[in-house]
């Protein structure tokens, strides 16, 4: 099975994956971890706001929304993409 690591921003609605790395530091990094986004966590993109930003994801049984420029710090392992 093919695996690829892509940025959360690049994920399509409905696509799932597992967080590989969180590059954010400082306040943003802390906030991302507080919400349970750490490596090894499965996530699924639920959708995007009407203006395509922020993005809503399903993580640990709840819905979290984050801006695209924040999603850019999150690398996700997804299946079947080149």
């Amino acid at each position, binding site marked *: 099975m093919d695996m690829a690591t892509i940025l959360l921003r690049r994920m399509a609605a409905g696509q799932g994956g597992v967080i590989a790395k*969180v590059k954010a*530091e400082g*306040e*943003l*990094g*802390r*906030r*991302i*971890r*507080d*919400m*349970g986004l*750490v*490596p090894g*966590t499965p996530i699924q993109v*639920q*959708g*995007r*706001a*009407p*203006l*395509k*930003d*922020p993005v*809503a994801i399903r993580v*640990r*049984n*709840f*819905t*979290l*929304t*984050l*801006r695209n420029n*924040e999603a850019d710090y999150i690398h996700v392992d997804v299946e079947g993409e080149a």
Partner: protein
Amino acid sequence: MKGVSSEVLIALAGNPNCGKTTLFNAITGARQHVGNYPGITVEKKEGFYSLNGCQIRLVDLPGTYSLTAYSLEELVARDFLVQDRPRAVINIVDASNLERNLYLTVQLLELGLPVTLALNMIDAAMNRGIEIDAAELSRRLRVPVVPTVARVGKGKEELLETVLSVAEEDRPWEPLHISYGPDIDPVLDQMEALIRKAQFLTEAFPARWTALKYLEGDEQVLTKGREADWAISSRLERLSDQVTVHLRKTLDTYPEAIIADHRYGFIAALLKGGVLKQNKKADRLYLSDQLDRVLTNRFFGPVLMFIILYAVYQFTFNYSRLPIEWIEKGFASLSGFAETVLPRGPLKSLVISGIIDGVGSVVGFVPLIMFMFLAIAFLEDTGYLARVAYMLDRVFRTFGLHGNSVMAYIVSGGIAGGCAVPGVMATRTLRSSRERLATLLTAPFMNCGAKFPVFAMLIAAFFPANHALMMFCVTLLSWASALVVAKFIRSTLLRGPSTPFLLELPPYRLPTFKGLLIHTWERTWQYIQKAGTIILAFSMLFWALMAFPGLDERERGRFEEERAAVLSQVEPGDRELLRTIGEGETEIPAEFSEAVEELKEVDRREAQAALKRSYAGRLGTTLEAVTHWVGFDWRTNVALLSGFAAKEIIISTLGTAYSMGETGDEESVSLSRRLSGDSGWNPLKAFTLIVFIMLYAPCFATVTCIIKESGAWKWGLFSVVFNTLVALLASLLIYQGGLRLRLGV
């Protein structure tokens, strides 16, 4: 043996949206607002509960996801736990969302607090196919675990009994030791030993916890440490730096991230082996997600949002119309009663013009405000407001704000009604001081429940055909002004990058009818209290300012002469009849009607002259030098000055001013009808006044709050001066532009 009537301090901690405030209300019976928006609980709330002869003092801590001193709420919560040292802590967690909720629990335990876990919304979790072995969880965490359903008060007694027994044990704090992996553990031990030996900050924090905070780079603890003992602090910082450098080189990460990973690892291990079972079959698309597919849909989302917000207007206006009429009629008859009972003189004037008119015009809007609050509470409690923040963040960011600014704006009156005081307080959910300041400085532009009646009165007078539509436009205008000014402030005085968004969308919940009524009543009651106290006091103060010093002997004599001149036209025998006409319901004979009208005209001019000579009138007249450019005469100026006390006073001042200027008018005509009949007014002037009131200096309660929340006097002063300048500028553009386009004729 149990302590006799001793007071036990217990703290209530938990994530936002886990039912914390609901549980707090269920226990203490205190009536607060329960919202579905993260971080609505920002102030410290206390409640009391009596159990087994013990008085429990329960403190509702702000809802936080963590204790990392990321936000003001987290700092408040942590400081309280460390400084007030509650005997026990109820940590309420959402059973459907256990993993993330336990992240806070772990941090409470790292601090060594005597925690009791309330496994809340256990019913909803079971419906989702989530099974939790509470007994095993309790054994592994070594804390009591009690399943609860706060909405219906289930498990409340058991929880309190458990917590009380924990509190009565009164054992010393036992910090939880977790392994943070081979990179952190050795240095953590080393630092802990160093801290223990030097007694460094140990009176406040457990040694290992301080070491952990040094590794996490916690600014608050670092500052405290440096103050306490510079040398030890430096050594700890050096140790921490060494690990950081090492981790950067080898793993491209840093201690804080590793520590968080291991906390989640600890939680994952905790929930393994049957403690948490997720029934796969039940893991379907929940109703909440299905609703979101429509409500936050690219096309339908914004359309529905607009429709929902507009529906709030229709709802509040249509349903409040009838009760408002009843109240107006009630006060009119009260006025009429006072008219017949009280003797002529200053007391009568005070009672009718100062008290009845002043309070009546405010109380008349209570139904309107009640329906508005009901609508807002509904949107808040269902979870829809968080979706509004989600959908609007992109827009807000453009103006240098944050999706969370929506909350402050809406509480301040962004939907309909509201108050800038809680609105300014709601900005505490914003971490960045820049976005927070920009939000709290512009939130007072929103149409609060106090400005609302003023607008409603002016609109009723000058735009009666398009009542709801006009109100909607006024609201859109206040949003536009707030956003544009925010952008201006964020690109001049408060320049800087934006802060993280990361907002939880709580599941949609159907609010309980009782809950809605409590919230609505709470807010409405606050409004009534304000009307009954501050407004009444200021209504009387301004009556005095307008009644004194009064006309001098010479001027009064001149009006007497004019009266005598009128009376001299009729037969001496009828003069006494004419004099009494103003007071009773005497039928006016047709042949005297002309003379009566002339007498009334004299009275009116006398009252007007007296008002103009009054202290308030003089100040208002002086200000005409500036305000004539925007079409305001001294009467409007006086009303606007009084509005600094509270915006709703604008109505009572205008009302008092106009009723004083038209003594002898038997009918109790509402102010709006009086203004619409006044030749000095027209729609352009009314609209200019609406815009001015929307934008000018916030009331002194809000200014006090701005000072408190921003931590600086200068921002309070700034809001008064800056907002008034903005208001003058906007009014000038509208009025002079309107005159050029001949809209005022």
